[in-house]
């Protein structure tokens, strides 16, 4: 097949502070999603390190990485990735099953999480019965159910119209502010990043192009000052 090694993320060195809202920008194939996967513990770097809360993800075992994904990070995806044959409540409580939380507590937490994203009434529906925005809200509820420190979002508005996208992004920003959650969002829409992120990191061909605070964002205190 003549495989050639492609460096998806090459020599990128960044530091993200707790509570930051960071946007990873770049065209497709720029390595932004690969970088997100490294932070998410879904992938491992061939060299270098990803240090989260003083732990190098590159040195964790598969089991420890799974624990990390379960408890430290929450993920939302462009295509929502809800499990089709489960109701919203079941989807949302799935991470709690992996965390071996008791059923009674699980039900309560799932209900609360859906309440928070405004889907309490839809908890017994299946994802296919919901709109895209609702599905992404459910995915957000699932990402937050284990109270992670970091929320990772991979083109969260990519499949949504702009109105719904805004709704989702407002919600993400709310979590960032109210819960003090670090948010790392991959997007190729610069306006979206400018509107919500505090800091923008530009990637191209796997290399870091630019890393600067967002001067436009309303969320940026310095920008407002």
């Amino acid at each position: 097949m003549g495989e050639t090694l492609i460096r998806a993320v090459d020599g990128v060195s960044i530091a993200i502070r707790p509570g930051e809202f960071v946007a990873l920008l770049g065209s497709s194939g720029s390595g932004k999603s690969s970088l997100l996967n490294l932070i998410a513990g879904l992938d491992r770097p061939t060299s270098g390190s990803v240090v989260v809360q003083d732990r190098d993800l590159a040195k964790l075992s598969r089991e420890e990485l799974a624990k990390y994904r379960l408890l430290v990070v929450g993920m939302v995806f462009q295509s929502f990735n809800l499990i089709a044959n489960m109701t919203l409540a079941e989807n949302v409580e799935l991470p709690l099953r992996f965390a071996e939380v008791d059923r009674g507590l699980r039900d309560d937490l799932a209900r609360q999480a859906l309440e928070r994203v405004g889907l309490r009434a839809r908890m017994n529906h299946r994802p296919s019965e919901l709109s895209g925005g609702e599905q992404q809200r459910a995915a957000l509820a699932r990402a937050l159910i284990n109270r992670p420190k970091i929320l990772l979002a991979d083109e969260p508005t990519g499949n949504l119209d702009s109105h719904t996208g805004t709704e989702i992004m407002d919600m993400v920003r709310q979590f960032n502010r109210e819960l003090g959650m670090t948010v790392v969002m991959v997007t190729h829409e610069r306006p979206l990043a400018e509107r919500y992120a505090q800091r923008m990191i530009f990637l191209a061909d796997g290399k870091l192009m630019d890393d600067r605070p967002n001067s436009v964002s309303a969320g940026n205190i310095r920008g407002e000052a």
Partner: protein
Amino acid sequence: MKIPDITELALRNLRESMLRNSLTTVGISVGVASLVAMLSLGIGLQQLASRRLVKSGLFDTIIVTSRRDLRGRDEDRNAPLPGESRILDEGARQEIERVPNVIEAYPDIRFVTELRFDDKPHLTVISALPSSAKSNDAFEGMQGRFFSSDGAAEVILQKSFAEELLGKAPARGTPEPNVRDLASPLLGKELVMRYAQRAPSQSQPASGTAKVGSPGFGALDDSSYSVVSREQTLKIVGVCDLDPESMRGPTRAKVFLPLKLAESLHVMQPTDLREVSRGPNEQPVYSSVSARVKSPAQIQAVEDAIKKMGFTTFSLLDASQSLRTFFKVLDLFLGIFGSLALAVASIGIVNTLVMAILERRREIGVMKAIGASDGDVKKLFFAEAGAMGILGGFTGVALGWAIGRVINLGTNIYLKRQSLPPDNFWSVPWWLVLSAIGFSFIVSLISGLYPAGRAARLDPVQALRYE
């Protein structure tokens, strides 16, 4: 993940692709059914055969004699010499009865005497039966009934003697007479048995007595006794079709008395002449004692124990042993054939689960992304395989049970047409049910090994990219 959660998710996944998973489960249940049907027939046949053997009494009886008896002298060089051998008296009988695994030991009372029926004399061998003989297979198909009590003045005739009494000499070429036809004119009738009673010499000699004493001069010592001629009326209560004493060859009896009655009669037996040389003896002395053993497998041990006591023993070689070996091999073959279907079914499980991985690739990726460990994914697929195994096991046992029943029924209909008695050729013991379900479960888990491992190793990044 906790086991209830795994089970719940697995069952949910199974329900999702209902058709495919049901078909796979049906495959397993057919495999289990063939295994159960094959083995249940094998076990049933084995039970039938050994039931017959045990009931025949051929292989669970040891005949014990004293070495003073001439029987068996040349057969066993290690046996004690005649002079050292013990006397087979009541004490010895009780001792034999106490040997482990011996159910009972009863004296063989056997004598040749004259029976009068319709004022015609008939000479025959008579023997005594303990009440436990009632369960002997030889009395299957008997007309009339077994002795009402152990001391009743009743008699059971063997078919051939019944023919003799009725004056129907068996002619060559004619079919054997039906036992029912022979029994009807005889049942309830009376016979008169004439016999020689051995009485202590102190008693008043009756007419026609002869005195027998020790050889030599001590004709009036303690061991001498008189022989008195007696008569006893006996009621015919049964006529048996088969031969209860087939193992005894030419000395087998044609007429049977209850044991207690026979003992009380003190009939002079052929061996008595030799026993007088033994000096004073208050206990009854027997020419031989039959010891019934719990199962044919214990014959050897019991025989050895009795030989150690100083007696000679005789038993038929345990034919059931080779029979058991035969059935072990038969069961093994039937089991292998049955398992083949299960092996094919297990490939079905592998196939179904591998397909499920392909279909649910993205779902596996999502689960991993939100925190499922390799172990969680593996357990989930294992649980799906195991659930199909258990489900298939249960339905398979039910199906196999039904198949066995139908085969049994069909065979019995066939036997009936051939005018043979129906029997049970088929047995599903509880251990077969449990082990069939367990086996199906284990085979399914083994089949799940590869798919589960593959699902667990799936790279989440690639799995998420999969559409």
